[in-house]
């Protein structure tokens, strides 16, 4: 599948998971900047994938993809969007052949010749028989991705499946490993490879006779599942940063209505491109825990530090490398600017002072606990039995404001005065939302 097609599927899945059910076919297609025909085709492909992967899905849930994304929300830790990473298209014969090869190597060491003979016997009658070159190519690929390994130094080489990590573990050890992978994939980033490994370990446990319920003992509350979609770009950006290369991309601001613009090859469907082609020197990515969203931050030749939401990045391409010195200098400057960023704001720093009110009920002081856990580098000082003070130097107030507001009446802004006034005005307006009840 072309790179562009992935961009489309990422956008498609994100819109489906975020705004599930909101749009008609036409509205959905319009917002993605694709034709209804393309919409139908993409949906059909995704559904086919879901059906193959989730054979135990109840029939009534299988009908609507947006419904499926909600399925098991409170019962399972399965990341529903993982299937994006399983979408790479493949010829059927290739998938049959690779499976045959891997299966043959699970427990036995074999040479390319053995495997070619085996394929000739076992490939379905209507498939072309693979020649030696094809088999060698397959083995080279499987070795590259690490699923098989070569066991001897001299020709003819013998191969076997690289399953030691699993085969060497007892059932009890494997269960501990499954749990660890489950916990880490769900609570840490990056997680895509962890979720893929989790899938594999889950199957091994079932194969070893564990009850399916044995892999469903853990749940994760308030998890941002769509965060894994943005990991699709992470390694491309990482590669560019490692090589100190600029990148070019088409940026579709999530604030504008359209999320995806197809690279049109058919002039009949030509649309005006809604995005902006940009080029930056990538420096860092930021993960925002408040929304489960990713940002790319880089240096732009004219504009200096520039930030992009990962979800708006499409058609990323590597460009020219820069000198190490230039990269180091830009990175240093960025780190200094981000020092006081609640998330990514690099504007001037403001001193914010807040009074927090402890809960009036006795018992756990959940206000204090939350400020201590989430207040980043802010400083707490004692004030009275019922209150404490919190002070922080932060770049602008836009990013910290929602957090402060989330404390409701347990938080009183002291400084700056204009922010105090804003809070008063906002609470009055919020009050008007509900006063008629």
């Amino acid at each position, binding site marked *: 599948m072309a790179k562009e097609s992935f961009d489309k599927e990422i956008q498609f899945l994100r819109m489906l998971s*975020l705004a599930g059910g909101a749009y008609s076919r036409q509205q959905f297609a319009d917002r993605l900047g694709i034709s209804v025909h393309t919409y139908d085709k993409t949906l059909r492909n995704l559904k086919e994938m879901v059906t193959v992967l989730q054979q135990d899905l109840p029939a009534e849930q299988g009908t609507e993809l947006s419904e499926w994304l909600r399925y098991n929300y409170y019962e399972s830790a399965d990341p529903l969007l993982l299937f994006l990473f399983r979408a790479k298209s493949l010829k059927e014969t290739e*998938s049959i052949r690779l499976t045959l090869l891997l299966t043959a190597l699970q427990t036995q060491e074999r040479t390319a010749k053995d495997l070619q003979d085996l394929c000739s016997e076992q490939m379905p009658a209507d498939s072309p028989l693979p020649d030696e070159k094809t088999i060698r190519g397959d083995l080279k690929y499987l070795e590259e991705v690490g699923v098989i390994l070569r066991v001897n130094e001299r020709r003819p080489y013998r191969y076997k499946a690289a399953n030691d990590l*699993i085969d060497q573990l007892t059932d009890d050890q494997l269960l501990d490993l499954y749990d660890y992978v489950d916990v880490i994939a769900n609570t840490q980033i990056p997680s895509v490879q962890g979720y893929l490994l989790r899938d594999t370990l889950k199957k091994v446990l079932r194969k070893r006779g564990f009850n399916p319920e044995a892999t469903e*003992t853990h749940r994760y509350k308030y998890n941002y599942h769509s965060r894994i979609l943005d990991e699709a770009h992470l390694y491309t950006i990482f590669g560019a940063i490692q090589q100190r290369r600029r990148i070019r991309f088409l940026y579709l601001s999530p604030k504008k209505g359209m999320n995806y613009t197809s690279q049109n090859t058919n002039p009949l469907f030509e649309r005006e491109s809604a995005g902006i082609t940009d080029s930056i020197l990538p420096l860092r990515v930021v993960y925002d825990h408040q929304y489960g969203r990713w940002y790319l931050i880089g240096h732009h030749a004219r504009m200096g530090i520039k930030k992009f939401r990962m979800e708006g990045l499409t058609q990323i391409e590597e460009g020219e490398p820069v000198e190490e010195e230039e990269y180091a200098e830009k990175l240093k400057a960025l780190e200094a600017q981000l020092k006081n960023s609640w998330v*990514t704001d690099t504007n001037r720093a403001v001193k914010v002072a807040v009074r927090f009110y402890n809960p009036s009920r006795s018992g756990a002081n959940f206000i204090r606990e939350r400020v201590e856990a989430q207040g980043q580098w802010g400083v707490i000082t004692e004030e009275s039995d019922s209150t404490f003070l919190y002070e922080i130097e932060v770049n602008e107030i836009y990013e910290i404001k929602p957090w402060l507001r989330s404390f409701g009446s347990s938080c009183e802004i002291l400084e700056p005065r204009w922010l105090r006034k804003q809070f008063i005005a906002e609470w009055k307006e919020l*009050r008007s939302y*509900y006063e008629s009840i």
Partner: protein
Amino acid sequence: MNPFEKIFNFQIISRLDEAGSLALTSQERSWLKTMLRHPASEAAFTPETLSKLNTLLEPEASIEVGEIIMEKARSKERQVYHPLLRTLRRMIMQNQGILIAYQIKHGGERTDQAGFPHKLEYNMYKREWYLQWYSTRQRSLMSTKLRNIVSVEVFPIPAKRIDDLKARIARLLDGLKESACVQVIPTFNAELSRILSAFSCFDKSVSFDEASGIYQIHVNYMRDDSEFLLSRIRFLGLRVKITQGEQLKRRMLKTADMAIERYGGMCN
């Protein structure tokens, strides 16, 4: 490192399943090797298993992508693993009854509480583990922080009661389901993606009325999630308004009143 390798393709995966075969890539092993450096690994494995894993993974490369990632606005990680997880997950898996002692909120301890464990739940916001269990004495569902558990041991439950207990837990959980509707104020529609992201950690669906340009977010939640839902709604401020959910609306009104009070009342 390419998470889109064709070996991950869904047709291959499903064929491998049918054949009972495995494909374990170096990407996955590298991820694991890197993640085993997390201090949580010490509570997750016996020393013997951990050293075996480290040996098995030695030839792999580490994933150094963490170098370029900055995590912001994250809660301090109180715990990723709790030493009791291994014990409790085995009790759940084996359908064992428990006898549990734990500290309670206002000080003091409850001891010898008999029950049946249901799930281990991690609260991503508080970064803390909880045990969900059914108390046979109080006939109700309990949620206890793992760090508050003083002791837990196996307590025999007759096998024939297990299905009944599970059904009861499912019924009780069902009874805790609530729903609410939150409307996006149309002047903030340009921020829709941010607003929907803020609710993406809930089970929700969205409806859109083209004529009025109004988005409604229908949130399904469990009763004990209502505090978190309210904090998300306050987080978004003027951008959203609760349109269904009387209890939540009353709470928002009360919060607004009390907040205004903090600043010296309406005349300020």
